[in-house]
């Protein structure tokens, strides 16, 4: 618990595929900052954002950092609330089994409700 002020609910909303743009990596960097301040952090993945968690990234060929292991390290920062939108998975031929970390698969409506419950939304 934070000693100064109330804990706020922070949600990071990820909608971009990894590597093609810098959004996914930047989001992760900011997530780790908030986690260090003992806030109530959750991550949402929808639209192309679900591709960020697709198992098996191998980035040697494109000479970019593979940041997928960082998602697996989030648990060490007590960041365990990862929500993935169901229809976004389905229309990309993916299932929860394709995700590199344990996630909660939620409907678009439920995700909307979760977003309403937040104090702060970060959009990526």
């Amino acid at each position: 618990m934070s000693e100064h002020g109330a804990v706020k609910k922070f949600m990071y909303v990820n909608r971009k595929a990894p590597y093609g743009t810098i959004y996914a990596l930047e989001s992760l960097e900011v997530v780790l900052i908030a986690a260090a301040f003992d806030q109530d952090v959750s991550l949402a993945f929808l639209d192309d954002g679900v591709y960020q968690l697709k198992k098996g990234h191998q980035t040697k060929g494109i000479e970019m950092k593979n940041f997928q292991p960082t998602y697996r390290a989030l648990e060490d920062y007590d960041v365990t609330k990862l929500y993935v939108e169901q229809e976004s998975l389905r229309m990309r031929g993916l299932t929860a089994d394709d995700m590199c970390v344990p996630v909660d698969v939620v409907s678009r409506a439920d995700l909307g409700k979760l977003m309403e419950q937040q104090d702060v939304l970060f959009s990526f």
Partner: protein
Amino acid sequence: MLHIVNKSPTERNALDSCLETAQAGGAVLLIEDGVYAATRGSATEGRLRAAMAHFEIYVLTPDLEARGMLAIEGVKFVDYGGFVDLVAKHDTCQSWL
């Protein structure tokens, strides 16, 4: 001519615009987030299969591997050297940015 698509088909309309414009006999190369168009089970799989009747479809392998995805059958795979060869082989290139 060679058409190059580097945007995700579920985020931008670059692929659709390319496929609607490209003339039969051309080649389409998918790179960066464009490779998602050729992945199994994606919403664009059908569109890409239909396009194969008219164009050669190429996928840049390093970009596919980086994203941990598998491509549908029928596409051709190129590495960076193959990318250069494709550009050299065609008189003109259009990048659907």
